[in-house]
């Protein structure tokens, strides 16, 4: 009986243990590649957002443009006659 147990331990249990541990290791190694890829993408995304600070300049320019537009519109309002009322 002990011989059977010893053979089962050597032939079945050891390969199963090795197979399961190998699966865990492969999964962990797979995660490593994915995490490194995500890190590269996150760094690139962060770098792409460097231009976001220019939005403040854009906002100021838009504000000035609309202010100039309002002045221009006020002048046009004085220069041009209003449309005739619909008949």
């Amino acid at each position, binding site marked *: 009986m002990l011989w059977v147990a010893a053979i089962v331990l*050597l032939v079945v249990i050891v390969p199963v243990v*090795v197979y399961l541990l190998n699966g*865990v290791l492969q999964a*962990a190694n797979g995660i490593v590649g994915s995490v490194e890829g995500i890190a590269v993408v996150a760094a690139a995304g962060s770098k792409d957002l460097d231009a976001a600070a220019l939005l403040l300049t854009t906002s100021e320019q838009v504000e000035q443009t609309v202010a100039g537009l309002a002045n221009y*519109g006020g002048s046009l309002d004085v220069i041009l006659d209003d449309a005739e009322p619909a008949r």
Partner: protein
Amino acid sequence: MSAVGAVFLVAAALIVLALVYFLVSTILALRKITAGLDEVIAGVSEIVEKSAPVNGVVNAINAQLDAGVELLEGLLVQKAGMSDALGLVDGIYPGAAAAGFRAFSDSPTHQAPRIGEVYTRGTLSLARLGREAPIAALSPAGAVLRNVEGGSLAARSLYPDVRHTTPEKLPTSPVIGAGAPVQYEQREDIGAPRKRLPAKPS
């Protein structure tokens, strides 16, 4: 030690070796994952930090642009009238008349004249500002007034001809001095005492 005990011992040793090898490898892989996640967290934190003010800035820009659009639309409707204003906008942005103006909820119900099919865009704007062009004078159901192939020439007819042709050849400036083609000799009588005419016999 019996043979059975030796087999058990070998099996246990193999299991322990496998555990050591794979667990150590897994630990190293997890450390790499931890380092990678640290980089990810740093990158994502930068993204969050940099994108935080974007929403407010974009909303401010949109508010400014909305104000500008309402201003322009209101001015256009006030000066050109709702129907012609829709026709003008639809001529520049085809299909915009169907959407109408933001500040005028009833604007989509108006019939937009086909101004864009009658005049070129530049003529369209200038003629509307001049308020003299017969824009959309004909029925929208009528034939197109503008010749599509010769649209530019048709548009020119709205303006005085002198603006589009070579000015008439003007006389050149006269050449004076020793090189002049016509030399005028000084008359001797200029500056001399006037001759006295003989007295008429009485």
